[in-house]
């Protein structure tokens, strides 16, 4: 099993969720994060104080899936989260050893 973790633009959440359910992935976890990268930030001014703000609001999505679905998931996310403009975000994939569903104690693929 793998976790596909994606950093996306906040307003893309609904589209990504739809794309994932479209390919049969019905569970995911979302975190509000701030991202720093090539996308340039903005300047905020509060009376005399100017701040160059380089962290931009992003969402992190984590989806645990059986390894054989990873490609499909990546594809769904890239397609639905893309605007073509700098700052669209990244996808990272890493392996997990185990998955457990707390309610039932089911493990691994059954737990997802």
């Amino acid at each position, binding site marked *: 099993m793998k976790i596909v973790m994606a950093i996306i633009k906040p*307003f893309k959440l*609904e589209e990504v969720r739809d794309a994932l359910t479209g390919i049969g992935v019905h569970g995911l976890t979302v975190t509000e994060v701030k991202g720093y990268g090539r996308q340039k930030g*903005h*300047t*905020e*001014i*509060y009376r005399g104080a100017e701040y160059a703000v380089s962290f931009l609001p992003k969402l992190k999505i984590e989806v645990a899936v059986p390894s054989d679905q990873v490609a499909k998931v990546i594809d769904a996310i890239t397609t639905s989260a893309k605007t073509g*403009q700098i700052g669209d975000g990244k996808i990272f994939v890493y392996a997990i050893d185990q998955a457990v569903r707390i309610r039932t104690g089911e493990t691994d693929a059954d737990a997802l």
Partner: protein
Amino acid sequence: MTIKNWIRAGLPALATTALFAAAAFAQDNPATGAEATAEAVAAVATVDKGDVTWMMVSSILVLFMTVPGLALFYGGLVRAKNMLSVLMQVLVVAAVMMLLWVFYGYSLSFTSGNAFIGGFEKAFLAGVTTESLADTFSANVKIPEYIFIVFQMTFSAITPALIVGAFAERMKFSAIVLFSILWVTFVYYPMAHMVWFSEGLLFLHGALDFAGGTVVHINAGLAGLVGAIIVGKRTGYGKELMPPHSLPFAMIGASVLWVGWFGFNAGSNLEANAGTTLAVINTFVATAGAIVGWTLIEWLAKGKPSMLGAISGMVAGLVAITPAAGLSGPLGAIVLGFVASIICFFFCTTIKNALGYDDSLDVFGVHGVGGIVGAIGTGIVVAPALGGPGISGYEMGAQVWIQTQAVLLTFVWCGIGSAIIFYLVNVIVGLRPSVEKEREGLDIVEHGERAYHS
């Protein structure tokens, strides 16, 4: 003069009679009468300090309605990234309107000119001093002209600020400021002159409007609708979630609107007498009726009564009772508030969606529709048979028709005027920021700041 006919005699008459170095005062008002030259005055005009206090309080209350009241009510309903833009729009628009009022607005509204607009004789408040007095609706009861100017100023400040809710989250700040300046000049001042000034077109027509349902609410609601349509929908409207970012702020704002509205409605009586207290009780109970109305209908229609619904009803009720504040009995006021609330509910939840325009904060759905219900309803609840105070020569059908005509004229004047001004502003500075900027949020893009940091 009885309450039955003073409305027709009316508000507009008063500001025209500023007396310089005038007015003998009763012995109990030695301070204000200090310099009065008794021999110059035939009739005994009095200034009562209770009235002066009430009008100062009322003016302050209308400011309170505007900031923070209206600003918060609107600001709480937008997304966090546009919060400051809304606060800023309401605040700066109100401030600019205050300056224009002093510069030429008061003069254009409340001096002689033609049937549509006044002149420039009191531009920059020329000739107004602490000795100048303004009429009230009672013979020989006067108030200092400064406080009349201030009270009317607050009306002209909040009206354009009401409009910005209709196209919140998507219009450029420069466009909004420019629009407001043109709109107040070419739509509001003429409407105020026509409705409130004794030589105005509508004044003699006999339409009842206690505290400005037509000039303020229908006027603002319609301008908002026109703006919402011309500027177009918010990016993502209908696809992305756009829930209110802080309903508690909206609730504070709505409550402050209620509190401040007493200045608006009861202050419109220009003195502190029993008629004023009638406007006070109506502004209480019509609103209570409207809160209950929206709560019940939403409970029935949607299964759950929401807090946003209750405060939407609150504002709808306040709007509806505005033209009828001193012209209805308390029971009539309750019914008017209740009915207006239910009509606004259906408009905002059903009709608006069917029509498909994006009036961000339902300025038309609440102020426009509520204003129309109130304007026409005033012609009904005023009936003595329904517990209203009545007016001389009242006949329900005729009065309702007069009220309807006033609404229609507002639609024509304001609708056409607003549309022209929006197109003009679009040509001069452009109405909308780019889609990218709209996505980022107006706070950062237009004002360089963010509402919240942790």
